[in-house]
């Protein structure tokens, strides 16, 4: 049996990657292509006929003001959430690697929010915002204060806050790994050369952790852009549909309003936007990576 024969390579591939590739094909690639086909139909999701309409759905998607509002909202939400998630995660990672007492306990503690599913988490926080904060606010001010969730800006603020709370612990783990990978010898050398700790951090540790940043920012961007579960359980788009994110609009369009083709086209546009942002960020981030 020759190891460089094509048949050998194929059989090796099939043995190791075959099952996974087949499944990936069945649950991702084929539905994606089928979905692409559906964007050219005016299917309502349940009828037997799928009338072909060409590019009408894309034209409608570009003309759907609510969709682009939702997209803009998602952009704003992602912008703040990504920055805050990473700042908080980095700070936490710094604290739990700096040798404070019980740091393993803190690492586990900060990670726990990520173990709670988005839906449950949304309901828990909804209760906190609607009852606990309102009760405290009312007691302090003496009048009934409206819940943050019922004000236009407040609902967005709540979404960002909950997202930061949820993801900071997860990203923290990646940053912790980054911190651990920077050898103490390098930091010591910098200190001997006259750096103060902040300079050593800025000039030595952070550049060497670039890979962690690229990874964390990529993960947080892609997750924020397609946020749905927290959006659904925390605000449900309220008040006045001003907290409807792109993914929720797509779901409503396809399933609630029964414009399946249009919803699918909008989902595809969301995918493209998400992919472009994510890939650009990784490209820029990777370019300046330094090897230790």
């Amino acid at each position: 049996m020759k190891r460089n024969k094509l048949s050998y390579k194929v059989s090796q591939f099939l043995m190791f990657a075959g099952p996974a590739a087949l499944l990936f094909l069945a649950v991702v690639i084929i539905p994606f292509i089928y979905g692409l086909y559906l964007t050219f139909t005016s299917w309502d999701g349940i009828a037997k006929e799928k009338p072909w309409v060409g590019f009408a759905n894309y034209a409608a998607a570009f003309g759907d003001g609510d969709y682009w509002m939702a997209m803009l909202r998602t952009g704003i939400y992602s912008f703040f959430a990504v920055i805050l998630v990473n700042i908080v995660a980095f700070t936490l990672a710094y604290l739990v690697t700096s040798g404070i007492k019980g740091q393993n306990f803190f690492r586990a503690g900060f990670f726990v929010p990520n173990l709670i599913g988005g839906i449950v988490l949304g309901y828990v926080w909804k209760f906190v915002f609607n009852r606990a904060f309102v009760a405290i606010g009312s007691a302090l001010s003496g009048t009934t204060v409206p819940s943050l969730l019922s004000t236009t800006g407040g609902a967005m603020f709540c979404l960002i806050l909950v997202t930061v709370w949820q993801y900071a612990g997860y990203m923290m783990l990646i940053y912790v790994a980054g911190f651990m990978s920077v050898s103490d010898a390098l930091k010591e050398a910098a200190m001997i050369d006259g750096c103060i700790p902040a300079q050593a951090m800025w000039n030595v540790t952070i550049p060497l952790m670039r890979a962690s940043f690229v990874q964390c920012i990529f993960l947080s961007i892609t997750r924020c852009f397609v946020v749905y579960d927290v959006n659904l359980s925390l605000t449900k788009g309220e008040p006045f549909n001003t907290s409807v994110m792109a993914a929720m609009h797509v779901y409503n369009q396809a399933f609630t309003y029964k414009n399946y083709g249009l919803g699918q086209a909008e989902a595809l546009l969301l995918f493209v936007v998400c992919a472009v942002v994510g890939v650009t960020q990784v490209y820029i981030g990777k370019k300046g990576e330094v090897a230790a």
Partner: protein
Amino acid sequence: MKKRKIAAILMTVVLAVGTLAGCGGGSSSSGGGSGDSSAEADSSDSGSGDAEGITIFNSKMEVQSQMEEMAEKYSEEKGVPVEVYYSSDTVAAHLATKYASNDPYTISMVDAKDVYSLAEEHALDLTGEGWVDKTTQAISIGDKVYGFPVCIEARGIIYNADAIKNITGEDFDPSSIKTKADFEDLCKTLVDGGMEAPTGVMKEDWSLGAHYLAQVYEEQDDPDAFIAGIKDGSVDLAKDEKYNSLMDTFDVLKDNNYAKDAAISAEREVTEQKLAEGEIAFMFGGNWDWSVLNAYDYTENMGMMPVPQDMEDDFSGKLVGGGSKYFFIDSSENTSETQQQEAKDFLNWLVDDEEGQSFIVNDCALVPAYSNITLEVADPLGKSVKEYTDDDLLVPNYNYLPDDHYSICGASFQKYLAGETDRDGLAKEITDYWGTAEVGEH
């Protein structure tokens, strides 16, 4: 060497099986989608003559446990296996996945608007069934009957008579509240008597958009023409008499709202608890609210009355409502003729058999839609609705509103409730909505 090779192969197999097993749950249900349906059809055809059993999709969460019990009993007594399923998903979205995987329910419970969109392709013609003559609420398209009304539900103002009596000292007579002024005066009396705020307003978009606002269309002599008028500009909604009449009354509800300062954060459960326990006296809602009210320390002295309005017309003194939740039987080749017959028998059992009647009225506490069912409705709101139904005092539902109406117009209405827009602003947003929206075919 050989041992290592065997070990490697074993590892690979374990890994491969692991990957497959991980997706097993998901792929088994979606597998039917792309696969052929003949396997299912074969298995259901083979046993003709014997009972094949039916599946029922229930979309009324509050009666799920009763449905399951009934299914068990029915299966035992009639020898026809019945299985009941529930999903919290949107009805149409859930059925869409079932149809996409060629695995529809034999009987599905849907909303009236779904019957119009689904029936012609998916529902069995039920013309000529015994129950059709016993109800006024069946849904027909063309000359074919498709929808079996499960119950009657109606909207109006829910009152707590005990809470009112505690303050006025007199028994509350709902028929004394006819106009907006009557209602306003009573609210004032209640406030003067020590009730902090006499009303509650649900902020949910379906309550505001699909239930309250929809009355503006429903209480027109010709709702179709009225909506067409809004669309082509010949009707000025902001100046419409019915719109203003209803909004006047809504203002009374809004001004007396216990959560006036924070109307959009009011939670439905809290509002209903206050109503049940008599902290507030009125709320706009429907008899389905009983399933929430009865979770609290409620009084039996509750009921429903029409929304009091200054405008006097054919619709004064009537609740708005009619058949709610419809059963239809699947007509596709996935459901065999035997199953279709079993499904028909089941629907007849609900209407004609004493046990079936008792199931709807006593077990599920629903208001029956059939004239031959004379059982007393147990819950107080249902009792009110039954009285109005028997006296023919129901304004029919307008079932052809587009699917996004409740969400978009409901959001506009929420702005009005929150004080972020005024009556003209709301009328303008609704008119803008109708600029592009189309009513369903009927």
